[in-house]
């Protein structure tokens, strides 16, 4: 069942990155960019309704700036850190709304919390990548990690409905 949730999470992220950020995501990367001292941002939000959970999304800061640049249609130098952070939060926000609807249907009411964002270390990002329910995508040769923590039994019920 965990694989099903990861599949949905991957599909949702891929679609939202394309529609919102005009960016294409791959599950494999042949030539990942080696950025040793790049900072990493992580956005996080919770949802509560028939099930409770947390969705986290981590990406290198330069990728978040590219995302903001794409969304706003402005050049990279115009996208500072606050705008990059805001773009990542909004990406997470849209993905979370879509994810909850796909996992539990469009009838139940969920309260989506306001997303927060903070910088994390590479070790923290690796830890996030290794958690159960995490998926890793490659966007512009840079890694994006998403992790969904949700009540498993409720999630199982959602997949078994109908």
């Amino acid at each position, binding site marked *: 069942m965990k694989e099903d949730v990861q599949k949905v999470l991957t599909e949702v992220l891929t679609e939202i990155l394309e*529609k919102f950020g005009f960016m294409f995501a791959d599950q494999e990367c042949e030539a990942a960019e080696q950025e040793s001292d790049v900072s990493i941002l992580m956005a996080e939000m919770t949802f509560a309704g028939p099930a409770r959970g947390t969705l986290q999304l981590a990406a290198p800061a330069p990728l978040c700036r590219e995302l*903001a640049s794409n969304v706003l249609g402005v050049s990279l130098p115009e996208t500072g850190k606050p705008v990059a952070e805001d773009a990542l939060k*909004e990406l997470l926000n*849209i993905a*979370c*709304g*879509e994810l909850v609807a796909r996992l539990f249907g*469009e009838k*139940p*009411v969920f309260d989506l919390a306001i997303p927060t964002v903070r910088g994390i270390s590479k070790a923290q990002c690796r830890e996030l990548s290794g958690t159960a329910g995490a998926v890793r995508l490659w966007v512009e040769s840079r890694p994006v990690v998403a992790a969904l923590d949700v009540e498993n039994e409720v999630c199982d019920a959602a997949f078994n409905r109908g």
Partner: protein
Amino acid sequence: MAYNALIVDDSRVTRALVAKTLRLSGIEFGEMYEAADGQEALDRLASNWVDIVFADIHMPRMSGAEMVDRMAEQGLLDATPVVVISTERSVTRIQELKAKGISAYLKKPFTPEAIKETVQKLLGPSVGENTEE
């Protein structure tokens, strides 16, 4: 005739994106006011003429739903259509918002076409159409 819009969202990226989409829609907009939450939006509405409001639902301090309630109490909804642009997907909650008096709902991520069609529907079918001299 230029229309004044109020864009209410706690995400500055989304506010900028909505404003840009409106500017490129072919519809003539005048002032584009912005607010980061429902309370700030009510303050803008109290001091400026606004023809149409685009609002998110999930915002800190005052949500979009509460803002719509306040607008209804002040009799503002009859003259000023509110378009909700949100990640909200629950049909139950969208129906509640429609019952409160919102004019339209668009889900994020929205398309420029969806915004233009919605504005034309709410402000008049000829809005944004090219007219030959």
